[in-house]
């Protein structure tokens, strides 16, 4: 997990050891808080892991066996799948010091293209599915071209495309919902990620895992590998950390940006597929809060909105934290407004810790 730390471009020049040596030299002069700060700076993903652990502990006490049942915990995993997949796309963008406000709209647009082509227009499900993925890819590509070539701020670009893709959702769907039964009859492939298998755990119960959740984990591993073990991934971090230095170091930052936004668009389309699996239907009303929920997961997962620092694993845990808190609070009998309040507080705490850890590198 040490890959999360800053200094990517330094690493590429082979300077990474320098900072670490100096730190170990001063180790005796630090108080426990400073040591913690340094530890977290080195392994930032531990923060969301600790928060998740604390959450599980609290709710296991407050809501009792209902919460800590393996069935319930596996439901939480199902519930966060859409947001986590969307969060993976958002993490890639935010690592480049960008933001993508259109992820939710791309997700729904792709799901509607898939659904309507297959169910209403009788296109073979496999082809409809591929065209749905292509839709997401093109949406991402448009974002990337506008950010990299026209050099507009990502916030502005995606604020604009959010509206445009949202309008396309209404246009393509004609505001109609395709019912679960109609989708099942015409294109069961689109609902496949919603099917599940049971994992009996002796002495604890039976977990229900959907293929959507499995895909989420596979996708996270893949993107983690790409970001940390390939040249392209290191370029993503470097571009986000300091675009100008990255460019001077010979990285084609424009190409990196375009590729990142395009890949993110494709992942959003996959999230659209996950959405059909989860709700069975193809609905233009779904995923209204997905945009901000995905950003929330990324931020709570410890990825810095300033770019260049953060991880996919953090985002996954961030999504799980939000899901766990909502579920745990609901099972403890807490009203919905306080669930919202708690998620808001988590964001503030996450960013506060992030800022505190960052102070070291300053």
């Amino acid at each position: 997990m040490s890959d999360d730390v800053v200094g990517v471009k330094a690493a590429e020049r082979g300077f990474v050891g320098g900072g670490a040596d100096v730190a170990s030299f001063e180790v005796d002069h630090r108080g426990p808080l400073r040591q913690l700060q340094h530890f977290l700076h080195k392994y930032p993903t531990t923060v969301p892991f600790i928060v998740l652990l604390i959450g599980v502990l609290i709710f296991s006490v407050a809501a009792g066996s209902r919460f800590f049942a393996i069935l319930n915990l596996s439901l939480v995993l199902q519930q966060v799948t859409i947001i986590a997949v969307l969060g993976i796309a958002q993490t890639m963008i935010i690592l480049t010091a960008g933001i993508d406000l259109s992820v939710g709209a791309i997700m729904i647009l792709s799901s509607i293209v898939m659904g309507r082509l297959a169910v209403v227009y009788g296109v073979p499900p496999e082809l409809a599915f591929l065209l749905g993925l292509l839709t997401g890819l093109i949406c991402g590509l448009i974002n990337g071209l506008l950010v990299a070539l026209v050099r507009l701020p990502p916030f502005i670009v995606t604020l604009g495309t959010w509206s445009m893709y949202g309008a396309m959702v209404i246009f393509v769907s004609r505001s109609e919902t395709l019912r679960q039964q109609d989708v099942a009859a015409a294109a069961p492939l689109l609902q496949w990620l919603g099917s599940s298998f049971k994992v009996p755990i002796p002495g604890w119960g039976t977990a229900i895992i959907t293929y959507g959740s499995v895909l989420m984990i596979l996708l996270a591993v893949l993107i983690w590998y790409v970001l940390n073990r390939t040249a392209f991934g290191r370029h993503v971090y470097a571009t986000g950390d300091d675009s100008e230095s990255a460019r001077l170091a010979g990285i084609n930052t424009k190409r990196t940006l375009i590729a990142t936004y395009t890949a993110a668009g494709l992942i959003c389309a996959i999230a659209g597929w996950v959405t059909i699996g989860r709700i069975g239907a193809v609905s233009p009303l779904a995923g209204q809060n997905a945009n901000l929920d995905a950003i929330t997961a990324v931020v709570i997962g410890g990825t810095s909105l300033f770019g260049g620092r953060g991880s996919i694993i953090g985002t996954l845990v961030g999504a799980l934290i939000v899901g766990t808190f909502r579920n745990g609070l609901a099972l403890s009998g807490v009203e919905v407004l306080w669930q919202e309040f708690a998620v808001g507080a988590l964001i503030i705490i996450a960013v506060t810790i992030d800022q505190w850890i960052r102070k070291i590198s300053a």
Partner: protein
Amino acid sequence: MVFHWEVTVKRTTLRTSVFAAAAAAFVAFVAPAHAAEIVGLITKTEGNPFFVKMREGAQTKAQELGLELRTAAGKFDGDNDSQVAAIENLISAGAKGFAIVPSDSSAIVPTIKKARDAGLLVIVLDTPLDPMDAADATFATDNFKAGELIGTWAKDTLGDKAADAKIAFLDLAANQPTVDYLRDQGFMKGFGIDIKDPKRYGDEDDARICGHEMTGGAEDGGRTAMETLLQKCPDINVVYTINEPAAAGAYEALKALGKDDGSVLVTSIDGGCPGVANVKAGVIGATSQQYPLKMAAMAMEAIAKFAKDGTKPQVDPKLGFLDTGATLITDKPVKGVESITSEEGAKLCWG
């Protein structure tokens, strides 16, 4: 620098010509083709089929009456600013009147007053203003009654077992907008639950209530809310849902846990075409159907009449609004409530 300068010039020229073309097109678009009376329809959003149907109803009626209809909508549910701008545009356009589904029942009131002071007839559809008499008339579904219908149906279907039912409430949003508490509390009254404050849910102490979770009125929210409540009370056998997308989501959750064998009664409100089809398929036990097309068509008629001779529409003095009706749709009718079948409902459905 020189290169950059050239590019800028080119861009500017291009931009100017594009703007000129767009401006010309816009002028051509807004110039009145004939001198028909202008009427308006302002809905909450573009996306919801309920409002799409409403617009269709208004469009057909306006054409029939020789009116020129201008429509507008907010960007999202709760978008007051866009609706304010739309009203101001109608006033400047010299409209005779308009129908509006307010996104924010209180915040829109001063702008409505401005329109009425300017001589426009204002008819509020679906969601009453706060206060209701701030409009010339309100045409709406009696949402409390719509809730009562499905509540009574659920109680009568269970019979003696209603006394130890376990009910999940899948509501709209934590801020409890009017339609949310009216439907919820209507259901409770129909089911025979002491509702305490009728303007708020969550203050009841009936042990049959498992809890209230929010759905946002969509499938994904419905599924998550149902899953959560099922974890809280595995013995839930009655589900109230704010609308049919939420009900469809709830059913997915029931199915995933093997509870789709008809042992759980799912009730809903709206009467959209997918919802009615779900009644036929057995996903939803009963739903209350409302009539957006009728609301909008009646509003257009009222404005046409007002433009002709200045008469304003009359509303039910007891309710304070004109009830456009709600009908229970179910294929398992009970004695206590009048209902129509899903087949009949499909002929009247919207969206």
